[in-house]
Structure formats: structure tokens, C-alpha cells
């Protein structure tokens, strides 16, 4: 069963525990600026929107990588960056139309969500159930992907 992160912004309070958990998992430091998941605050609307890679089928990042540093994990379906192979050219950061691949100036490599090998730290840390890790067919992810395809048809 393929699982995905399901995000329900209605439940998000903007506490950023997910960003801390993500950065600790991946960078061994509490450091939201290096988190692969980001919560965007819409002050005027009073809304918080957690946002990260949907591991989209188009895999713009994977296709744009010139050195095969981004590959799909067959077990989780996540597009993963191989740190050793990544040269830091940043082409994936402009290729991903969702803006979910970021350049880490400290390491000279790019970072993106890899679903923590199937046990996402953000979902575990979320105190309100705004981020859950569930069966893909249940997430409405297909809808998001359909939107993505419509909005960003290139190939």
C-alpha cells in the first residue's frame, strides 16, 4: 500500500512542531529554515497551510537532474535526493513548479521531502492531526495531481 502525507490546513494552528521534527530528523538540529515541510501563515485570513512535496507523478525534479541524483524510492514512492551524487546545480529547484525543492546553502546540496523512509517525522509531531500519513487513495492526492497536471502541462 502506497501512503502519502495528507494535509488538512483547517486543523493547523501554525505551531511549527512539524518543521522542528523534520529538521531534526534530517539535519539533527531544530532548524525550521531547513525543514522540508513549511507552514505558511495567512495572517489576514487567519489560516495556516502546511506544504510539502506531493511526490508527484511528473517528478519534474527527477527528470531535470543532470546527474541522476534524484531517484524514486520504490517502497515509499518518494523522490529522494542522493546527497553524494547531487552537485548542487539547483536546476531541480527551478524545475519543480511547486517550489518544494530547496537549495541548502550550508551544504551546497538540495533538499526535499523524502517521507522519512516511510515514517514521516512531521506527521508524528503534529499535535492536531493536520498532517497525517495515510493510504494514498484516500488523500485526494489524485485531485492535487490532476490540478498539477492541468496547471503545469509541459511534457
Amino acid at each position, binding site marked *: 500500500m502506497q501512503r502519502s502525507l495528507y494535509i488538512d490546513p483547517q486543523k493547523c*494552528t*501554525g*505551531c*511549527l*512542531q512539524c518543521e*522542528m*521534527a523534520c*529538521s*531534526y530528523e534530517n*539535519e*539533527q*538540529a*531544530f*532548524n*525550521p*529554515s*531547513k525543514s522540508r515541510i513549511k507552514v505558511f501563515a495567512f*495572517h*489576514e*485570513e*487567519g*489560516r*495556516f497551510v502546511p506544504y510539502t512535496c506531493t511526490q508527484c507523478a511528473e517528478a519534474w525534479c527527477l527528470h531535470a537532474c543532470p546527474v541522476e541524483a534524484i531517484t524514486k524510492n520504490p517502497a515509499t514512492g518518494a523522490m529522494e535526493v542522493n546527497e553524494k551524487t547531487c552537485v548542487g546545480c539547483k536546476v531541480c529547484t527551478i524545475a519543480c513548479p511547486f517550489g518544494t525543492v530547496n537549495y541548502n546553502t*550550508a551544504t551546497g546540496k538540495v533538499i526535499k521531502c523524502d517521507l522519512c523512509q516511510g515514517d514521516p517525522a512531521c506527521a508524528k*509531531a503534529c*499535535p*492536531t492531526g493536520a498532517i497525517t500519513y495515510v493510504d494514498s487513495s484516500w488523500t485526494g492526492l489524485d485531485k492535487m495531481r490532476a490540478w498539477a497536471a492541468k496547471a503545469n502541462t509541459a511534457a
Partner: protein
Amino acid sequence: MGWNNKVLRVNLSTGSMSVEPLRMDWARDYLGQRGLATKYLVEETDPKVDPLSPDNKMIMTTGPLTGTEASTSGRYSVVTKGPLTNAIACSNSGGFFGAELKYAGWDMIIFEGRSPKPVYLSIVDDKAELLDAAEIWGKSVWETEHWVHKKHHDPLVRVATIGAGAEKGVLYAAIVNDLHRAAGRSGVGAVMGSKNLKAVVVRGTIGMNKVKDPVAFHAASEAAKKVLADNAVTGAGLPKYGTQVLMNVINEIGAMPTRNWREVQFEGASAISGEAMYEPRQSDGKPNLVRNGACFGCTIACGRISTIDPTHFSVQGEGKERYKHASGGLEYEAAWALGSDTGIDDLDALTYANFLCNEHGLDPISFGATVAAAMELYEVGALTKEQTGGIEFKFGNAEALCKAAELTGKGEGFGLELGLGSRRLCEKYGHPEFSMTVKSQEFPAYDARGIQGMGLTYATSNRGACHLRSYTVASEVLGIPVKTDPLVTDGKPELVKAFQDATAVVDSTGLCVFTTFAWTLADFQPQIQAACEGDWSMDKLNEVGERIWNLERQYNLDAGLTAADDTLPKRLLTEAAKTGPAAGRVNDLGKMMPVYYELRGWTADGKLKPETRKRLGV
């Protein structure tokens, strides 16, 4: 360890900056944040200093747990000598600024002197610069935050700033961060304004990985989070209603100060309560409350995000567009001060006044209470319409409240007089007895006639009247950790001392005191122990709390305060409550104070006995 071991010292007079290690020898005795910064202030300044002079220092400080995965880890404090009280001032704020400062690699910033021209401090990781603030001087908190984000091309720069009122000497001006979180009390914003320091803006991308034992820390913080989630107050009441959950409760027990403390129950309480914030309004069918919001790392999320009825008078006309969006909504203390204390039951007017307090950087408690005092002055004829610039300060007049907030926020007209606080205002207009203050700081929202322990809390609070120094309401009303009778004075000195010491520890960790609805020090202890070097047993923590309290006390004594300042306004000691369970009662402070002094190891005139000083090393 939970500290970055890095302090930024900023001399505003010369524009020079230096980096120094944190005094770890002091951290061992004072933990961090409130305690440690107080130690710095005590060591580095003369307690008799004029708070608004260049010789005063202002310290912005995080705690060792700030920025960690512990719940409510977003706290920072501002420690200085307060201009409202001429006593130690320590104001604590949440939001996101504190954690960002930690992530930029700093524990603390010490501001000295006074800049010859308006400046703001920009910190991006280890790079700190003083930059010209000419363009934002005179601007509001909201305008400044917007300007900074544009200027720095970064929506995630965290901003702590003052409004125009602080620049013009409003004595209860706050430092507001993240648009609507505030180091609110005692006028720390006025100190910042006196230093010509408009804002501190921070972006931290270094992060924090200095927890001593990450595995133990994770386990301890997870366990403590579960305690919060399972607790009725922190797991359900606060997320749903915020601190406004208290409005109806406190009113029912007859401890809701009303119309400048003339009464103890407010007939309009339910109209301005947490429950009322859920009621759909007629105009657009939407409730006041949009949702709850969290400060950094907070798994409680008591914050209110509200909107004003778009048809309400306060948001009509030009330039009011910004109040038609969601922003920081009413918390209990603000709803009380702006509402019950002024006799106003118009939820939208209170929300508007609260927005203005955030927008302009005012402490809504002191502001609302000062308006309430002005209303009493006005009603007895001591203050006239001519003197107020045409505003009719009658109890219940929502228009007057809104106008007063506009004027005080901008430091204009009669607003400048309101900005002096109720003690100075009432003295000026000949009725010092109308000032509901201790050490010149306005009371919060619990009547000491109906909750006896709070009388002692207020009278002995080192920063002037305050509920956050020993929130005995928890025990006397909510039964946390054990229920005590609010109308009884026996045992209250012990209760107050225990709460004062424990709270001093909590305020020194980087975590939020609201966790103590569910947590005791025993829930903090494993988190502190896992995060910080050294021994942090329960005994040690209790001692640290007591040490901090006594250090603050000694500072105040050295500043010239005496036992005579440990008192309550006559109204609470002589005018009995008229209604409710506490009808007929005054506050029996006189019964509690000698016991308290004795417990503290103080002399009858409120000074630290030599053996107390020696035991605590103060």
C-alpha cells in the same frame, strides 16, 4: 546544553557591537531567560537608574529550552528597569521571534546606551548590524513589520518592534513581535523607544542542536506533551476558548473587577466571553473567532484569531481596511481590561481596541485599566470633556474606548495623558485613590476580594500588579494542582510563595507559563535535566526559583522601593464586594503579609535577612 553560549552586546550610543560568551557560572544559578537576564541587569546597572535614561540597559533573552521541540518553546523575555513601576521589569512573549533568535545562534542581546538617531538591529545568523530606522520611526508595529519584510526580501524575518506610542513615552508601551504577540507589561517598549531602537529583526538559519541528551529530551518532551493533551484545560478548554474560557467562570465567583473595581461582577460578561466569540453575528453570519493559533512550538494553541463585524462603527470610514482582516483576538485579560473594567460589553469594540493595542504596541491591560480610571475621574467630574479633547469618558462608552486607543497608540492629544498610566493620571486629576495599581502598574482581571491569594500576589509582585507572577487563581478557582478556598487567607502565603518560585523557574526555561495549568515543576524537570548541563533536580529548581525571586526583590529594594509599596489600593482593602460569593469581603492583605515575609526569610520591613541572602547567594 540548551544554550548557544553566545551573547550580543549592542552599545547604541556608539553603534558598536561585541560578542561574548554567556556567563555559564550565572546560568548554573539562574537557569536562563528571566533569572539569568535579571542577574546580568543587577550586575551591570545601578538599580537607581532612570529607566528611560541611556544608563538603563534592556536585555532580550531566550531560555535554554527556547527553540527546542518541547511544547511552547517560543518564549523570550525582555528584562530592564521599568518606567511604569521604577522597579524590575520582565516581560515575556511568545510568537516566533524568540525561537528565531535562538536559531540565529544567540541566547541574549544586551542593549546599552541610546542611539543618536533611530536605528533597528538586524540579525541574520551571526551577522548583526544596526541600520537606519528613519523610514519607520513613527510607524506602527504593523507598518514596521511590513516594511521590514519588503526591505529584507524575506517574509520569514521575525520582527519585534515598538509603535509610535513607545517613541513618545507611553509608559506601558509594549514590544510587539509577530504582529500580535507582546512583551506587554511594565513599559519595556518605552525603554526601547527611549534608546531610539525601533525594532529588532531576526532570521536564524543555523538552528539549534545543543540539547545535552537528545534521546532523553525527546522522551521527556513527548511525555510532557501528552500531559498537556490529556489535560482538560490545556487539551480542550484553552484550544477552544483561549484564556477567554475564564470570563464566565471568574464572573460567577464574583471576582470580575468591573467599572474600575467598583463592582465585582459584570452584567455584560457573557457578551464578551470566549463563548460569545463563537456566536455568528447578524451582519455576515460569521463569528468573531476565525480559529485558534499557536505560538512557536505550542501544542496548546490558546491564541485567538478574530475578525471585527464589518458593519461595526469602529471599522467604518477611510483607512480602516486593515481592521477588516483577521488578526490577534481578545484574550481574557484584554477582554476584561478593555471591557469589564470599562463597563463595555461590545465585543467588536473590544476586538478593535485590542487590534489597536497590537498595532501600536500598547499593553491592553494597563491601557484598558487607565481608560477605566479616566472614566471614573470623568464621572465624578474630575476630568472634563475639554480636558479629554471632546471624548466622553463614561463607563460603557465604546466610542470613547476606540478613540482613546487610537490617540494613545499614536501618542497624540489626550492619548499622551492616558499613556502615563492610571497612577500618574489619577494623581494629576486629584484622585490617586482611583488608581487600581500596585507599584504604579495596573491590575489584571481577578478581584482580590473574591480571590484572596491574588491580593498577596499583586501586593508582592516584583514588577507591580500582575497575575503572571503567582497565578493562585489556578488553585483557588480551578483546583490546580489542589483546590483551595478563594475566600480564605490561611495557607495563601505558602501558596503564593510556592507559585512565585515555581513561576520564576518556568519563566527562565523558554517555555510558557500556561503549561502550568497541566504541568508542575516535576514535568519541567526532566526536560530541563535532559537539555542542560549540570544537575537540575527538583530541589535545585526550587532553590533557583527562590533565588530569582529574591534577586528581583533586592533589586527593587536597592531601587528605593520599600515594604510600603507591598500593598493594595484602599478600595480593595476597605470597600467590600457588593455582590456574588464574595459579597461583604475586602482583601485581608494584612493577615497574609507578615506570614509571607516570614516565609520568605525577610524582615518585618520586607528586607532580605542576612541568612536568606547567604543561603541563596543573592
